[in-house]
């Protein structure tokens, strides 16, 4: 078997300049690869200013890269469905050595939800933070569906408990009113027994609150 000559390096070393050129090409490939993925990524410095983002992040916030660089991350991000920032200023500042995760709902109809995750990048002091934003609208839509009554589209017990918990949490952050409407249909069992469940289901749909009918899918 003849000796196979070693393959020449793709970019022959040319001293320090050659090394820098090769490192640049490597970084360029990495940056280009990060630009292709669907997950939105952004890196912020200790002051919470954007110092790098990928194309998916630029698309998420609807701005050009040059508009984003140097801006505070909390100002660049879209607001959630009740008009509040997704992240607080403190959460977006580097120097925070804690990782974190939260879900944010940008709109309810149609449902648009993000899973936000962040990690410290321990390359320097104070450290930058890397944030990722994943579209979890489909996943959350399925979970939301599991919290609804299949007949009326109103919240079931699980959904009601979740909604009360969310409303009370919101109330603690922003004082206001939470209204709970309680309806009781007397002798409803007799309707089912006399006319069948299909009639009972129609009655339930007629009896549900108008606003819920309007907002239910």
């Amino acid at each position, binding site marked *: 078997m003849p000796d196979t000559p070693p393959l020449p390096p793709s970019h022959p070393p040319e001293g320090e300049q050659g090394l820098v050129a090769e490192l*640049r090409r490597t*970084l*360029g490939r990495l940056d*280009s690869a990060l630009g292709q993925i669907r997950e939105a990524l952004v890196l912020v410095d200790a002051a919470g200013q*954007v*110092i790098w*983002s990928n194309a998916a992040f630029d698309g998420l916030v609807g701005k050009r890269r040059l*508009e984003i660089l140097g801006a505070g991350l909390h100002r660049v991000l879209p607001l959630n469905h009740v008009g509040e920032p997704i992240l607080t200023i403190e959460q977006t500042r580097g120097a925070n050595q804690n990782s974190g995760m939260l879900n944010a709902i940008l709109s309810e109809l149609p449902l648009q939800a993000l899973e936000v995750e962040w990690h410290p990048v321990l390359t320097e002091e104070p450290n930058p933070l890397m944030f990722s934003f994943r579209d979890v609208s489909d996943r959350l839509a399925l979970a939301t569906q599991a919290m609804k009554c299949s007949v009326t589209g109103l919240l079931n017990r699980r959904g009601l408990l979740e909604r009360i918990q969310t409303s009370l949490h919101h109330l603690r952050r922003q004082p206001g009113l939470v209204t709970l409407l309680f309806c009781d249909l007397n002798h409803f069992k007799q309707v089912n027994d006399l006319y069948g469940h299909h009639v009972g289901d129609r009655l339930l749909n007629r009896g549900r609150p108008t606003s819920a009918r309007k907002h239910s899918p």
Partner: protein
Amino acid sequence: MQQGDRPFVLADSLGQIVAINSAFEQAYGWRDQQLRGKSLSVILPAAFQMSHQLGFSRFQALEISTILAHPLRLKTVCVDGREVVSEHFIVAEKIGGAWVFGATLTPLPDQTPTDA
């Protein structure tokens, strides 16, 4: 360009400054010997430096750019640390197999908004 009255900076394929003209020295206060051999990122605000280096690297890998040959309003860092909004017009040319980058910079009035 180097003899012209518009600030001009020339950089090699690695993004190191090769020359600036006297209009650049007057506009931003840097002397040629202070910048020669330094990275172009020296004259960019800190928040832009990482993206600049990665964008430059991406160009080395792909030879595709979205910022060449059209005006960009960006901040330029002066020798005293002041940041002046300037219109950058960057061009690239391959000479003898290596890229060379040239940019004209026009300082704009103080209140001019940037593209950034």
